[in-house]
């Protein structure tokens, strides 16, 4: 238990606030709840150690020892793999602690990679990096579930993102859609959901909460290509999906700063919607025929999923203005359809939506007495005003006054909030 807390307990006993028995009970309660610090550290160092050793082996083998015969080199390719398998097998058979499973799993993951990379090196197998990564992932995915290993989960997530990047962005003359990425993510999802259900408060679950949406965000661009206007719209819809995923029941009991879906979704929505708020964006009519079918299908699938999520999340609650973020992407999709007929209406509508979002966020911040949310709302309004400076013809005096007004608003709201808090205290 925390030493400061122990000091406080003895102080409370000395001042006769609690009895020695109660202090002992409190002490026992916290001790029983706490996982020993040394275990956590051992886990971290075990995984880090395996990671470094595994990577080291890959690098040593990548030297390509051409003094050895092909047979010797082939045997070398199998040694780390077999060692990894023996250690994992032993850990499973002897029901060793999670430290063993995590560390050996990490090592085996890297050993599989080193083994297939060395074989392709010995025989000069050209296979591009994408297919190499895919084979590697397919051979290691089951480890996540067999070992219940969080470190292998993170490695799979990182490497599948790398795979999507390699296929979708890296080779400009041979860009492909990484469909297998979706399959791998779907395979990883049950593990993540189990973590959310049973280990929501765990620090690593928070890390997953950020890594998963980040991976989706990085890879999303590989699924859309073509007309840039439509791509921006598709991104809005995608961020809307992230935000609504973050509103699922699983996340009800954690703080917003631990919810990567909400944070990334909301930030992404604001940025992409600000791009849409420019009149220039809607300058030329957005004709439907400019969109390729592939992009259209991706956008429609995401939009439908978002709407289904929205209905699912809202089945027990009514509409509130301060939950406008959840509806934003669907509204933007509507403005896009309107934009095909009248671009002025759609740009005005987008500005209006951002403005309402900003104001409702400020209101939410005030209601919850949360400075973070309050200032985020102010920031949205400020960014909207700054953006409007570029395509609205206003005199410098008006622009200056607007800035002063917003600045004063920042001071005033924060000041009023501090006052309100003091009053309540």
């Amino acid at each position, binding site marked *: 238990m925390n030493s400061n807390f122990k000091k406080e307990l003895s102080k409370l006993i000395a001042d006769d606030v609690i009895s020695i028995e109660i202090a002992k009970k409190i002490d026992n309660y916290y001790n029983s709840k706490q996982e020993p610090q040394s275990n956590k550290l051992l886990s971290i160092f075990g995984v880090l150690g395996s990671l470094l050793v595994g990577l080291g082996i890959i690098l040593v083998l990548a030297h390509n020892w051409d003094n050895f015969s092909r047979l010797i080199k082939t045997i070398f390719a199998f040694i780390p793999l077999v060692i990894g*398998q023996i250690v994992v097998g032993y850990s499973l058979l002897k*029901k060793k602690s999670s430290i063993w499973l995590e560390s050996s799993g990490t090592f085996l993951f890297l050993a599989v990679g080193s083994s297939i990379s060395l074989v392709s090196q010995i*025989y000069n*197998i050209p296979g591009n990096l994408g297919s190499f990564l895919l084979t590697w992932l397919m051979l290691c995915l089951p480890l996540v579930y067999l070992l219940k290993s969080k470190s292998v989960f993170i490695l799979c997530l990182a490497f599948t993102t790398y795979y999507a990047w390699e296929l979708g962005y890296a080779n400009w003359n041979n860009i492909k859609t990484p469909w297998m990425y979706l399959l791998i993510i779907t395979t990883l999802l049950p593990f993540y959901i189990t973590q959310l259900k049973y280990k929501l408060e765990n620090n690593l679950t928070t890390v997953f909460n950020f890594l998963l949406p980040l991976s989706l965000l990085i890879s999303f661009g590989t699924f859309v290509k073509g007309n840039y206007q439509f791509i921006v719209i598709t991104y809005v819809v995608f961020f809307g999906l992230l935000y609504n995923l973050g509103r699922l029941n699983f996340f009800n009991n954690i703080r917003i700063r631990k919810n990567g879906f909400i944070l990334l979704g909301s930030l992404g929505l604001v940025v992409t919607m600000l791009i849409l708020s420019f009149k220039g964006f809607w300058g030329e009519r957005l004709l439907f025929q400019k969109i390729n079918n592939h992009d259209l299908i991706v956008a429609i699938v995401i939009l439908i999923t978002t709407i289904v999520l929205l209905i699912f999340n809202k089945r027990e609650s009514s509409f509130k203005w301060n939950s406008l973020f959840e509806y934003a992407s669907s509204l933007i999709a509507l403005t896009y359809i309107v934009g095909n007929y009248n671009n002025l209406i759609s740009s005005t509508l987008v500005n209006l939506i951002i403005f309402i979002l900003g104001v409702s966020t400020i209101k939410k911040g005030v209601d919850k007495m949360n400075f973070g949310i309050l200032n985020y709302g102010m920031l949205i309004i400020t960014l909207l005003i700054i953006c409007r400076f570029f395509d609205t013809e206003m005199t410098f005096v008006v622009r200056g006054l607007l800035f002063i007004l917003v600045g004063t608003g920042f001071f005033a709201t924060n000041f009023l909030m501090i006052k309100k808090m003091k009053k309540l205290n």
Partner: protein
Amino acid sequence: MKSKKIIFTLFLLLAVVQLLAPAKMIYNQEQIIKTGKAYKFLTQPLDPNDPLRGKYVRLNYQINRFKTSDTIWKKNHHAYVYLNDSIGFAKIDTVSHKKLNLPNDYVIADKYWFNQNNNTLRFNLPFGRFYMEESKAKPAEDLVRRNNREAINNTTCALVYIKEGKFVLKDVLINDESITDIIRKNSNN
């Protein structure tokens, strides 16, 4: 106890698959070397590196374009390059976007660009990487450059075994001697 057994059995299965994957790769390659036909492809190497598989020599082949009567080249098409043997060196017989019923050996190359003005297809042969010990890749490139300057004709070639569209790049040769051996000899002198 029962679940422990199931998990362990599943792990054993996975371990076998993990071992089989590289073993199968090795078996396929050995089969091609044993039963495939050897061709030499004239080439010019450069030395880049791969983050996981180490240093390699990238091989730019002289065979990289073909004037073809096949003019329907779509985005996802690959090039089936059919080969002839001309005094030990590979020559193109024909190129097609689909498999043809020909007795010649072939490889599937990445289509790079089809020029509609002169009906010429540019492609990259798939065996473009020759892995070398990291200290030898750069000397290999220098050696080839020197050789090309001194010799009247390019005498650097890749030795490739081909069978039913599959291939193994076995070695890179300069004047019929392995580039690895030449570098080893040079570093000993």
